[in-house]
């Protein structure tokens, strides 16, 4: 196969990847898009194998590698809980990052096979691209591992603030530049090795100060990094499929980070600098002596049975309690009684973009009952009940009125405009931002304390009577 035909086939693969993303513009076309992605991947792999046909030993290595990796991947894809998607995605980012580092190192060890020159005489441009791919890949790898540990709660979700952390990061960044220059100048593998080590360290120090509430931004950002790393390697290999994909993934992650930041009214810089949500103001209840109105599952069931329109606001608490199935059952029973049910999703609900939508879809909630903030916010005024399950900060009116609040300026769901607000919460604790929610004390608010899933199940029971 000539190099030109191979390049064209890689281009075809890249275009199919564009179609894969394009398909996601609507749930109706999304699965078709996913297939295009698979076909594109198959074309890219087949092209590589045909243009650089490996020896028998090489082929065997590849088949074994794909069998091990593919088997593991398929098993994880089939068994993972939908609530654990953020961890899974963070873990996948780590793998892309490490793969980029390994491919960059391989290109350095066997430059001829990659067509970038001979040993010790690699083109300077290729060395720069290689360093970029390796550095971004290494940052993605350790950064994603930290994100994975935080998301799966194997590590505290609170920010870990090293003393002088900004100085450390700047020094590591300067070291990266110096090492890149040394590597390009001397072609010595030692510098590449050090470059990778420093990038590993930078990945850790960049992510540990970022708190659990900011994880949606971090996961999106690492998504973006994994794309740029792939693009860097794509330049080293001169491979169009990789360059196009890297650019697509890089911009995709960047846009998602932007959407998440906007959803929290935070600047990207302040998220990256970290530290948010660290100083959770203990039990703020010390000064809080006002009473809240507490209700039972029967009360909630009665109110909702007699409602005309209910808007359900799910949050991360629903995911933790795995309450989505019980919630859908409750919604179905209410629908049978003629109640109009809609779901309202805040952009940063959950631990990754679109997390709540997947959980609701898993529980068989039709996607045309689920609405984004800007599409449904005006409807709370006509709603009889706002049913808030496991969400807190995203409903806090202080974001609109209290300039001193940590969440001031964040777009919120206007649940306070509904006639009755039902709050399902584990306790009176404040949300991730550590801010007291004024809504709890309003006369039209009723609190339902306890595990979200158990509470919803009791409501279902009371509705059945």
């Amino acid at each position, binding site marked *: 196969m000539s190099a030109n035909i191979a390049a064209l086939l890689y281009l075809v693969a890249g275009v199919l990847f564009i179609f894969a993303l394009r398909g996601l513009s609507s749930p109706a076309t999304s699965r078709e898009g*996913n297939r295009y992605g698979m076909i594109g991947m198959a074309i890219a792999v087949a092209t*590589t194998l045909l243009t650089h046909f*490996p020896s028998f030993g090489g082929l065997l290595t590849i088949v074994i590698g794909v069998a091990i990796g*593919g088997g*593991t991947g398929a098993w994880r894809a089939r068994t993972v809980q939908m609530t654990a998607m953020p961890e899974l995605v963070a873990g996948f980012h780590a793998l892309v990052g490490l*793969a980029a580092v390994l491919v960059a190192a391989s290109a350095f060890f066997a430059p001829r096979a990659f067509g970038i020159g001979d040993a010790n005489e690699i083109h300077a441009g290729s060395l720069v691209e290689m360093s970029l791919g390796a550095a971004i890949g290494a940052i993605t790898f350790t950064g994603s591992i930290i994100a994975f540990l935080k998301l799966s709660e194997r590590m505290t979700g609170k920010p870990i603030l090293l003393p002088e952390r900004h100085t450390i990061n700047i020094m590591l960044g300067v070291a990266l530049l110096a090492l890149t220059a040394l590597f390009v100048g001397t072609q010595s593998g030692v510098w590449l090795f050090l470059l990778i080590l420093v990038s590993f360290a930078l990945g850790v120090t960049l992510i540990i100060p970022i708190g659990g509430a900011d994880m949606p931004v971090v996961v999106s950002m690492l998504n973006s990094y994994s794309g740029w790393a792939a693009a860097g390697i794509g330049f080293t290999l001169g491979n*169009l499929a990789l360059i196009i994909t890297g650019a697509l993934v890089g911009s995709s992650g960047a846009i998602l980070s932007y959407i998440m930041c906007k959803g929290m009214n935070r600047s990207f810089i302040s998220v990256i600098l970290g530290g948010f949500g660290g100083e959770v103001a203990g039990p703020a209840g010390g000064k809080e002596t006002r009473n809240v109105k507490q209700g039972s599952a029967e009360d909630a069931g009665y109110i909702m049975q007699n409602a005309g329109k209910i808007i359900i606001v799910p949050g991360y608490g629903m995911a933790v309690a795995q309450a989505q199935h019980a919630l859908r059952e409750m919604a179905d029973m209410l629908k049978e009684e003629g109640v109009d049910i809609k779901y309202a999703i805040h952009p940063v609900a959950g631990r*990754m973009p679109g997390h709540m939508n997947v959980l609701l879809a898993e529980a068989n909630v039709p996607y045309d009952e689920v609405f984004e903030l800007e599409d449904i916010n005006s409807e709370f005024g006509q709603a009889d009940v706002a049913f808030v399950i496991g969400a807190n900060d995203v409903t806090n009116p202080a974001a609109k009125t209290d300039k001193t609040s940590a969440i001031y300026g964040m777009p919120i769901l206007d649940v306070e405009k509904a006639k009755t607000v039902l709050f399902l919460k584990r306790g009176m604790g404040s949300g991730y931002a550590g801010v007291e929610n004024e809504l709890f004390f309003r006369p039209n608010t009723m609190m339902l304390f306890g595990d979200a899933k158990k509470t919803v199940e009791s409501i279902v029971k009371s509705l059945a009577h």
Partner: protein
Amino acid sequence: MTDSTQQLLEKAQAAAEAARHLAEQAQHYSDELAHTAAAAAAHGLAGGAIDPFVFRVAIFAMAVFVGYYVVWSVTPALHTPLMSVTNAISSVIIVGALLAAGVEGMTAAEASGSWWANVFGFVAVILASVNIFGGFLVTERMLSMYKKKG
């Protein structure tokens, strides 16, 4: 008289010498000129000797813009599948891993380098495969859950 003839002859010879020198120089210049012109013509025909790197940068820049518009058109409800599918497609980095895993050293000097490339390539093939299979399959699983009313 013979003296002056002799002088004249010498002068003529010197003049001839100078003329020949001049001609040689002219020849040299014209050669050089022709050379440059030919090279310039060749450049012109090839559309200028643009480094392939520039084309790659151009494709990269275009792809960033395509990505920007395509991703903004993704419905927010599908942002999680978007992340898992971008994960899967960024693992097209496996093409580099395949090259590395299948490398054979041509000379003794290359043998140790290619051994390392084989090892790194093998591990990278495993990692990328986890992502490709895991990413596409989990996306498929999620997308199959999205259903319309009724």
